[in-house]
């Protein structure tokens, strides 16, 4: 892909993201206008403008905006993690959800919550990180020695995520408080309804740092195109690079899942769609994944919260409905081009 095409794709993504944020902040039952949103932001930034009525102000500042920003961060982070995992495992079907990392993070967060080890966003994230690392180690153990074929990696991810989903359900039902049913839905299907400024801040710090770290490793990720040995002969230390990037993606995924539950298939769909725009070189692919990932999940979440209003469907249901057919298409296309 030409340099100009790449620049265009990234500029387009940026514009689209700004427009989606504006649109998603306005869409909803309250009937607010973009001007109301701007006024509220300005008022909270300390600018001398008149505030809206407390109810509208609260809807925008306490509900809409944190949710919209969290959605963008989760979409961006999961998409970049997906692209990185696809490069490292040389498997076009890799994604934090399919590899079981998201399920592990859910289990870890739930365990922290239920065992009463802490309740803050940081404690949840720490539990989620532990769970995601454990799940990832399980996946590697199931795959066994040597680099697994695409099928093995996916199968290992599927069984491990089943295991951790079962554990999450077990822990939640065992806790059996009034919220347990809702809890299962949240952790297994993902929801962004509980967004707060605290979770936005934590996710912003971790996701942005994680994405920057992945971006800095763009050349190394390119070097993995033809496998570990080819990467080594291009001067990349494969084991060290894998260790660092697996840890970064597990940590990023964990913090995002602790805030949003396990939302599947974002990391699969977005990188594949974006490659059609930017090509496969990671210098262009990763920033574009961040932008379009944010746009994609924002669109999905806005539909999830408004399409069946006043009911809200978990956003993970929607991403799965889009993601499973996408998975099938990618798998079939793979078969047609034997290595």
């Amino acid at each position, binding site marked *: 892909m030409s340099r100009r095409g790449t620049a265009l794709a990234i500029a387009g993504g940026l514009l689209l993201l700004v427009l989606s944020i504006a649109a998603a902040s306005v869409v909803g039952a309250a009937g607010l206008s973009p001007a109301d949103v701007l006024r509220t932001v300005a008022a909270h930034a300390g600018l001398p403008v008149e505030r809206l009525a407390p109810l509208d102000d609260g809807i925008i500042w306490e509900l809409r905006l944190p949710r919209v920003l969290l959605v963008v961060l989760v979409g961006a982070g999961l998409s970049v993690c997906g692209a990185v995992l696809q490069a490292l495992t040389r498997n076009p079907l890799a994604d934090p959800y399919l590899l079981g990392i998201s399920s592990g993070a859910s289990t870890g967060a739930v365990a922290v919550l239920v065992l009463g080890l802490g309740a803050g966003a940081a404690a949840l994230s720490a539990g989620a990180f532990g769970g995601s690392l454990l799940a990832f180690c399980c996946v590697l153990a199931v795959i066994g020695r040597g680099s697994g074929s695409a099928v093995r990696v996916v199968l290992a991810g599927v069984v491990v995520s089943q295991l951790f989903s079962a554990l999450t359900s077990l822990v939640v039902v065992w806790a059996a408080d009034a919220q347990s049913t809702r809890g299962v839905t949240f952790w297994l299907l993902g929801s962004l309804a509980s967004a707060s400024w605290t979770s936005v801040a934590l996710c912003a710090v971790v996701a942005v740092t994680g994405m920057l770290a992945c971006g800095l490793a763009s*050349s190394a990720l390119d070097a993995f195109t033809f496998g570990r040995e080819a990467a080594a002969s291009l*001067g990349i230390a494969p084991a060290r690079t894998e260790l660092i990037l697996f840890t970064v993606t597990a940590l990023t995924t964990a913090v995002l899942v602790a805030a949003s539950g396990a939302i599947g298939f974002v990391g699969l769909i977005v990188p594949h769609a974006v490659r059609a725009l930017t090509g*496969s070189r990671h210098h262009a692919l990763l920033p574009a994944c961040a932008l379009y990932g944010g746009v994609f999940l924002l669109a999905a979440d806005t539909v999830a919260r408004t399409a069946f209003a006043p009911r809200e469907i978990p956003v993970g249901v929607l991403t799965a409905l889009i993601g499973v057919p996408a998975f099938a298409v990618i798998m079939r296309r793979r078969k047609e*081009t034997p*290595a």
Partner: protein
Amino acid sequence: MTFHAHDVTWTAQGRPVVDGITVDITPGGLTGLLGPNGSGKSTFLRLLAGLLRPHGGAVLLDGHDLNRLPRREVARRMAVVAQEVSTDVELTVLDVVLLGRIPHRGRLAASAGAGDLSHARRALRRCGLAALERRRWSTLSGGERQRVNIARALAQEPTELLLDEPTNHLDIAHQLALLDLLATTPVTVVTALHDLNLAAQYCDHLLLLHEGRLIAAGPPGQVLTEDTVERVYHVRAEIIASATGRPSLRFLSTSVRTGPL
């Protein structure tokens, strides 16, 4: 610039795959690595490339132990063309050749610049691939992929170039074009080859492996004798020395093992 293997050994499950090979690689020359299937050619090449760590002995590059040199420093001077390469990633031919510029770029973030692009295009021209620049890797034939991979190695600007049976998948015209390129380049080349006649015709120096051991080393006329060919390959060959001193081989169909004529 010296490139030297000293008593290099590598074992798999207690069985030596490469067994105490000591050799000086001729600087700037074309060295052919010969031997039957399973004789340890590929393993020895990967040891020379530093992709495997020897279980005994050492590979020395300018007197330094290859496995103690930083990977990146090695990649700036040594390029490797593996036997089979595959990827699911959708890349153009130019993208693939640009991978060879990675060791020459800044470690972090830096994307391919104008200088990288001109190096990559020059490598494509040298391999006769300029017209394929925008083609997608997945649409290439086996031979085209092989040549693109060689262009990628040249874009790495190596002083040492290691190739594992690079003539596989190539038709005879492209085999000759490749060997001409390898023979005329000032780079130190070590290449595994199957075709003994092509090896005899092009290489300055041959290394003949058998069951992991170096059986013979030297100019083609010394290494390819009726005796060594029979001993290593278990076939009889009639060897004619040409005026240039390069032998040519004609194989006799009956296997030695199945008995005399």
